């Protein structure tokens, strides 16, 4: 993309590194510990899951049989539809707001900024039971601390708040509430590593805040944003916690197979069908990988600057 903003003689440097590090054996030492963990708890389980998705309970290879079988499931298309709707809203919201808030907080008031980052992060610390309890009250206009807001939309009962049309937006709000703070911290940390001189130089050149953000800060956050995009996409396709949460908090008013990951879970642990569950998981991985590939190639995430 706009690599030109960072004037560097990348090629020459890379050559120099290669000369100094001809065999790269040390590279293996650095990654060795992680490699063992990756193999044991990443690769082996994933490989086994892949095998599950192409075999049946007798251990016979069935090719794409599990995939076509799960595709015919009555929940398959609605679940993918739901997740797609959610993804669009979720990705746009997260990307725009996280970058905006991180840049805003990266202003001059360190105390305020630090306090705000803490407060924005707070919900991220609440998980599981805490969130069930919270949304149980929050979503019910009669008892909710934001009841006036819900009623302003004309939603005067719990059932109206969680009407099927509202769900993608509602899940985005919940996911953003719990997850955005963490990403803001990461982006803030990344912004810290942009040398002051670069921004000062731009300022002296007469660039205003917006121009600095668009022409200097965001291009230099390129890899971080790419990473966030890939992960946000993947976690978005795997949407599980939020529907489960609202379902618990509403005594089951959300179908148990609303999202694809939920259907996969039902296959595994309600029907005892680990093969169908694995096939659905692989569907999600393929979609996630496709997105990742696009992002990786477009942004040069794997390249060394």
């Amino acid at each position, binding site marked *: 993309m706009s690599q030109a903003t960072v004037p*560097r003689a990348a090629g020459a440097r890379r050559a*120099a*590194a290669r000369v100094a*590090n001809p065999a*790269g054996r*040390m*590279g*293996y030492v*650095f*990654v060795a*510990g*992680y*490699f063992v*963990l*990756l193999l*044991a*708890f*990443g690769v*082996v*389980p*994933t490989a*086994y*899951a892949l095998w*599950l998705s192409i075999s049946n309970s007798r251990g016979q290879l069935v090719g794409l049989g599990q995939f076509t079988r799960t595709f015919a499931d009555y929940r398959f298309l609605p679940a993918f539809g739901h997740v797609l709707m959610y993804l669009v809203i979720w990705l746009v919201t997260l990307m725009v707001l996280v970058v905006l*808030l991180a840049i*805003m*907080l990266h202003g001059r008031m360190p105390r305020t900024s*630090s306090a705000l980052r803490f*407060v*924005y992060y*707070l919900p991220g*610390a609440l*998980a*599981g039971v*805490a969130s*069930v*309890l*919270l949304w149980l*009250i*929050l979503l019910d206009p009669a008892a909710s*601390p*934001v009841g006036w807001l819900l009623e302003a939309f004309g939603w005067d009962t719990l059932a109206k708040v969680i009407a099927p049309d509202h769900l993608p937006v509602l899940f985005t709000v919940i996911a953003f509430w719990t997850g955005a703070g963490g990403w803001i*911290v990461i982006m803030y*940390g990344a912004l*810290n590593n942009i040398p002051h001189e670069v921004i000062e130089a731009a300022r002296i050149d007469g660039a205003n805040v917006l121009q600095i953000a668009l022409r200097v800060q965001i291009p230099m956050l390129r*890899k971080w944003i790419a*990473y966030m995009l*890939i*992960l946000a996409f993947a976690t978005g396709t*795997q949407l599980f916690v939020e529907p489960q949460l609202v379902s618990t908090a509403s005594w089951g008013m959300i179908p148990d197979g609303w999202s694809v*990951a939920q259907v*996969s*879970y039902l296959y*595994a642990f309600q029907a005892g069908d680990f093969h169908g569950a694995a096939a659905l*998981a692989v569907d999600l*991985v393929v979609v996630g*990988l496709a997105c*990742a590939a696009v992002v990786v190639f477009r942004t040069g995430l*794997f390249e060394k*600057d």
Partner: protein
Amino acid sequence: MTAKSIGARLAWLITAGLFLFFFVLPVIWLLLAPTKSDAEIIRNNPFAFGSLDGVVTAWRNLYAFQDGVIVTWLRNSAVYTGLALLITIATSIPAGYGLALTQFVGRKTLLTVTLLTMIMPNAALVLPLYLEMDALGLDGTIWSVVLPFSFFPFGVYLTYIYFSSTIPQDLLAAARLDGCSEWQVFRSIALPLARPIVALVGFFGFVGNWNNFFLPFVMLPDSAQYPAQVGLNNLLTSSAVFNTSSGVDNAIMRPELALATLVTVVPVLLVFLFSQRALVSGMLAGATK
């Protein structure tokens, strides 16, 4: 010009304030919940303050649940996440550095595979992990939780991106030309700059594991081994709020649940404050380089 800057400041204030409101309002409600009785939580103004006696009562009821088992949960969580944190930092910081700043065959494969395992949905990995632990003879031990917790590809990526966008290659090349070994380069150049990323990785690893429910739930066979999240789930499902067969003597209601969640959140917030300081000190380190 001044009018414009006042406008900008106003926009800043409104936006930051709006989000402040959004993020903090539910948390304030949660903080106030244990001061009230269950009936007050539902019937009174959501932001009314009950009384400090309410907190004492809630704590007494919570602590009476299975003879103070909540302390056991917290201790278990601390052990699992603590051990995992050490292994995570020890493996992912060098790995991220190696991926970012050394050249070796298989580097891109490793990055790709890491990404693949990161986007694999958890539901599909539970059975394989369970069988693997069983085959390794680790089932039922704390290692069946600690070791998978230690595997933290997210942190490896954070470190990778951090090093690859923070440390200029020519700095390393110069050090190498000066005769530093790769290990010395890592020790003397990368590690001093690594404080913010250690803080980030440590923090996210800690929170992720502290809040993980499903893995310990699946792996641990004994309720004395439960970490906080699994324990809290038992607390929730034993409460009359969610368990219609709980009967009348149940003292665990909304105030107790709220207090329990607050108690388990405290360690996360402490770790956050610590890592915040490291992040800011990273900013200074960045300024001097």
